[in-house]
């Protein structure tokens, strides 16, 4: 649910990073935060445990610039990836405009990816969304690790609809902005369709 304010001439959209535990959702946001101009970003809020696992969500507001005199703001959220935070995960998806699925490329995490993707689909459906109709981008993260699955295999498993996908190494940055840019673009194009 985007928020279009004709009075302050602002458009606000919500993007959620989803994926299994330790796949790099928070790392994506941290990288975006690190590389964005101070005047474009708000605080990066992380509700995390003492061991830096996301407990509820991370939140990063980004002001990208203007389109036709409207300030465009994206609110980036991550969900807690760990399985037992299912109830919290559901809440974050409320009002989402676009989803980034961050998949862990390590072979031993493939099952976790599939499980998380199913979970995403179910949780979205509960909020009345259909993943197949939402702006949606996939990032195959951790491409720098040795034990990774080939992208073709991951696509077959996780991306039957062939949505835009990117290789990522969120820790050092490759793929992070490509992913963000792609989802932001899809969200804006979707808005254009409706208004």
């Amino acid at each position, binding site marked *: *649910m*985007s*928020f*279009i*304010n*004709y*009075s*302050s001439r602002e*458009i*606000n959209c*919500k993007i959620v990073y989803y994926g299994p535990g330790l796949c790099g959702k928070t790392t994506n946001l941290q990288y975006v935060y690190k590389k964005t101009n101070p005047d474009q970003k*708000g*605080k990066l*809020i992380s*509700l995390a445990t003492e061991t830096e696992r996301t407990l*509820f*969500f991370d*939140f990063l*507001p980004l002001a*990208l*610039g203007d*389109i*036709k*005199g*409207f300030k*465009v703001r994206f*609110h980036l959220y991550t969900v807690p990836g760990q399985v037992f935070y299912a*109830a*919290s995960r*559901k*809440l*974050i998806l*409320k*009002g989402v*405009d676009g989803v980034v699925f961050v998949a862990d490329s390590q072979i031993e995490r493939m099952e976790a990816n599939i499980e998380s993707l199913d979970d995403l689909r179910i949780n979205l459906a509960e909020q*009345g969304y259909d993943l197949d109709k*939402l702006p949606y981008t996939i990032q195959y993260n951790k491409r720098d690790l040795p034990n990774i699955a080939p992208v073709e295999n991951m696509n077959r498993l996780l991306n039957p609809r062939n949505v835009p996908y990117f290789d990522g190494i969120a820790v050092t940055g490759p793929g992070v*902005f490509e992913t963000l*840019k792609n989802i*932001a*673009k899809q969200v*804006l*194009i*979707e*808005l*254009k369709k*409706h*208004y």
Partner: protein
Amino acid sequence: MSGSDLIMYEEEFSRIDEELQRLYVQTNAKVVFLVDKNGQLIASAGETRDIDTTSLASLTAGNIAATGGIARLLGEKEFTILFHEGENDNIHISLIGQRVILVVIFDKRSSLGLVRLRVKKSSEALVKIFNDITSKSEKEKSVDSFDESPFAEISDEDIDNLFR
């Protein structure tokens, strides 16, 4: 992205602003603000300069969402009022008409009783304004009169420019 997008027009925005200003004065609060359930700040009144309202809005919505989750587990529809008491400042959060969140931050210059009373009055006014907004956006949509729409002529180039 269904019809649940929130579109705010000038006229309703000033009505909301007026109502928040009134509440701010009447409650003797430090800050009053209005957030939608998804965490977007809609409007605010008072001493907002030193407060990161964007983060506050998002966390408030998270708070309401978590509390709503607890409510449903207990078989309640929703807990409509949350109150947090601090050493100096207190925060009163209430859910209005199922869709927006009204937040009042106050200190010892005010009192919980006063805040509760005034919030209740303002809630009724705000519910009405938001009902008007909903019917207005539906009307605008049906007559297809989005002359002013910022999206009508949005180009790929516009979008690319955002990331330069």
